[in-house]
């Protein structure tokens, strides 16, 4: 009897009640935001609020039940944080679709489509948790994942299938369904590949080499993988005109290399390679050069009026400026003036209405989500999970940095989605799968060690 009590003391807590409470809190905030938008814009609580709110609530309850059944030890914060970010995105898209705008792109904002994709995303989340009982199964698929990732990455370049929209050739049209962005799924497959590959090759990458000044230089022949990834990501940049995916892919690889080897020389080599490659691409290719010009002189009137110029970026900056510290209030600003405010520029649109205070809260939520992922990585018991959890968390953080840095003109603007907020099915789906993988690994990391059926015997029962 006392042994049972003792065991319950030393086990990490499941925190199910905390998780459910936080989840209910997140759904309540989203419903409050819907009401706020309706009150401000129409003077009444919107008729769709109950449908959206209860719909989101029911979806999250379903996700929670799946999580409680199939990953009971999972981190209690991951799901509530994602719920709130996703919900705020839904509210912003709803709000943008309500306001009259003369921009041609404004008609594309569709809250019902996004809610439908959220549903599919949670379905994928649940299916991943149900069918992937042990994430280490992915380690056996290392090279398969690498091949799948590469094929997905280059698939938009195939004739007939690939489509070019808004100047970037990153779409694949599927007859009858619509278009998907295969790069969103490719990045997941590639992180799995990087993790499996680095577990196998980590020692040689970390140990061989010689020391020069303050950094350990790797051997020339060990540079192979880094050069190949560099080549592929530059290829994406040049062939598909997709600066964002290119930066995302290469940055994630360099970060995982650093996690695996703990050698800063890899990071330095990676940054030098990418900056060099980007400058070269900037000199050779027009579309990259134009991005740099916009980045350096966003206020230039000629660039502002040019097609694909700085108008969008400046409208975003104006929006955040008019929001100020406390924002204009939900439904009371004019974020509809920003082109594509519902997808790439949802961050400045939110900034106008919630102000710096709201944006900081939003960034804190992303930071907490990443922190939970990195914590999972630290607590994981096998090297593959450590690298995979670290890589996926970094992918999320890096994605937020690239798009938020882009819209605030800290770095050149690249077309990446804000995870869970921007309208877009592919991104939402792949990010929900990413969260399912993190949940699966945090479940494994926080689960108490396997219980023995007898104290002195060697026979043990392992829970899978």
């Amino acid at each position, binding site marked *: 009897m*006392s042994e049972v*009590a*003792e*065991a*319950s*003391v*030393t*086990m*990490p*807590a*499941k*925190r199910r*009640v*905390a998780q459910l409470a*936080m989840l209910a*809190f*997140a759904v309540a*905030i989203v419903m*409050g*935001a819907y009401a*706020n938008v309706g*009150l*401000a814009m129409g003077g009444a609580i919107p008729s769709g609020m109950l449908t959206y709110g209860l719909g989101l609530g029911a979806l999250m309850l379903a996700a929670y039940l799946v999580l409680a059944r199939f990953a009971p030890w999972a981190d*209690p*914060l991951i799901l*509530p*944080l994602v719920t*709130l970010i996703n919900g705020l995105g839904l509210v912003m898209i709803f709000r943008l679709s309500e306001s009259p705008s003369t921009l041609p792109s404004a008609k594309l904002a569709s809250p019902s489509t996004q809610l439908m994709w959220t549903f599919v995303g949670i379905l994928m989340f649940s299916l991943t948790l149900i069918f992937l009982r042990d994430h*280490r199964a992915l380690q056996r698929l290392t090279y398969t994942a690498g091949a799948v990732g590469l094929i997905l990455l280059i698939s938009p370049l195939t004739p007939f299938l690939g489509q070019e929209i808004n100047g970037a050739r990153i779409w694949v049209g599927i007859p009858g369904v619509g278009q998907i962005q295969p790069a969103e799924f490719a990045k997941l497959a590639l992180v799995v590949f990087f993790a499996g590959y680095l*577990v196998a090759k*980590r020692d040689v990458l970390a140990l061989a080499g010689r020391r020069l000044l303050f950094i350990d230089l790797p051997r020339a022949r060990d540079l192979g993988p880094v050069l190949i990834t560099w080549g592929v990501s530059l290829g994406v940049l040049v062939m598909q005109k997709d600066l964002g995916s290119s930066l995302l892919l290469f940055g994630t690889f360099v970060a995982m290399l650093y996690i695996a080897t703990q050698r800063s020389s890899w990071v330095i080599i990676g940054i030098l390679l990418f900056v060099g490659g980007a400058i070269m691409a900037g000199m050779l290719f027009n579309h990259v050069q134009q991005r740099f010009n916009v980045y350096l002189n966003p206020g230039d009137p000629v660039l502002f009026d040019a097609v694909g110029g700085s108008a969008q970026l400046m409208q975003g900056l104006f929006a955040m400026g008019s929001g100020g510290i*406390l*924002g204009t*209030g939900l439904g*009371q600003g004019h974020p509809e003036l920003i082109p594509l405010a519902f997808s790439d520029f949802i961050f400045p649109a939110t900034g106008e209405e*919630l*102000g710096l*205070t*709201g944006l900081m*809260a*939003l960034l*804190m*939520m992303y930071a*907490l989500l990443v*922190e939970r992922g990195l*914590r999972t990585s*630290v*607590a994981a*018991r*096998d*090297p593959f999970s*450590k690298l995979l959890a670290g890589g996926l968390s970094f992918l999320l953080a890096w994605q937020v940095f690239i798009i938020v840095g882009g819209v605030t003109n800290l770095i050149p603007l690249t077309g990446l989605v804000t995870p869970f907020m921007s309208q877009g099915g592919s991104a939402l789906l792949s990010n929900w799968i990413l969260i399912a993988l993190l949940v699966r690994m945090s479940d494994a990391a*926080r689960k*108490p*060690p*396997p*219980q*023995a059926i007898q*104290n002195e015997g060697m026979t*043990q029962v392992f829970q899978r």
Partner: protein
Amino acid sequence: MSELTLLLIRLAFLAVLWFFVIAAVGVIRTDLFGSRTAPAGPRKGVKPAKAVAKPKSKKGEPRQLVVTGGPLQGTTINLTETPITIGRASDATLVVSDDYASSRHARLFPQDGQWIVEDLGSTNGTYLERSKVTRPTPVPLGVPVRVGKTVIELRK
């Protein structure tokens, strides 16, 4: 809707948003300050019951296994009454991927309030401080145990 109501709603919404962030940090504070084994809700009155239920928990008894060296550095495992196996096999409690470790390398188990390390016939041996473990040996607190490239330690 009057301006004032909307202003109040706006401020309240931002406050609620931050309250969510603070509540989230509250949920993980056990993670930030101290070990994850801290009781989940001290307010629920569970604590006194637990204090009664562990009469044998003496001072100086290890409660955590910490990896202090090797690729898994920083990993902690909470010690229960369960033996802990270390090795390359995927069913080990602590899975090390290390060419110098055997698939079932070593085992740690509790006996009379002490933790004992036992080598499971590994190729390269298990070391307690500098000496090779040839038969089950008690592990004192804070003394490094080396398995391949991995170094572990028991801590309170």
